């Protein structure tokens, strides 16, 4: 088999799953739009706030803490990406690979300790 004609056949279930998932979601929206009666007026279109009339815009500013948490997640997500092939190939790289990975984790641990000491992990 040459590269141009390689076909990942074992991904066919994934493709079917994605297709069915999207079809069910879109189908529900389209079907309810077609079938249900729609007589909107102002109160009906208002955002539901447990029965209280909304008094401000929903587009309010987020706290910067969300950014810090998402950023920490991103950095350690990358670390997990590096850990995965290491764990799978561990029996073929052995002690050498273990030392490499320990150095890698120690370097990232410095950043973790820094973030901790700076109070980036606290919500208050």
């Amino acid at each position, binding site marked *: 088999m040459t590269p*141009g004609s*390689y076909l990942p056949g074992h991904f066919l279930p994934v493709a079917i799953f994605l297709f069915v998932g999207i079809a069910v979601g879109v189908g529900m929206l389209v079907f309810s739009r077609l079938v249900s009666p729609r007589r909107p007026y102002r109160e009906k279109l208002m955002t539901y706030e447990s029965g209280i009339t909304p008094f401000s815009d929903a587009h309010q500013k987020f706290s910067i803490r969300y*950014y810090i948490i998402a*950023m920490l997640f*991103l950095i350690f997500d990358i670390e997990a990406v590096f850990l995965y092939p290491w764990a799978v190939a561990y029996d073929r790289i052995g002690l050498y690979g273990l030392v490499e990975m320990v150095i890698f984790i120690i370097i990232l641990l410095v950043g973790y300790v820094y973030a901790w000491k700076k109070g980036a992990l606290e919500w208050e």
Partner: protein
Amino acid sequence: MVPLSWYVLLSAALFTIGVVGVLSRRNVFIILMSIELMLNAANINLIAFSHYLQNLTGQIFVIFVITVAAAEAAVALALIILLARNRGTVYVDEFNLLKG
């Protein structure tokens, strides 16, 4: 069968769209996203060559590209938050003061 040149053309198209986005948009978020577009174009190219030449180096390079993209996004977005808080705008042509 899909020739290698199709993947290279796709990557070139994506890269060019990214370049035009960086040069023409005013919103600094869209500029950063265009940079991500260009990195993804490079990734497609690397993986296509890796597959057609049956050499894993291209795939490993893509992991490093993604690492750099993540670090870059983290720092760049922190800078954007500070710039936007200090200047009150996210448009690059309004960041015209060197010191202020």
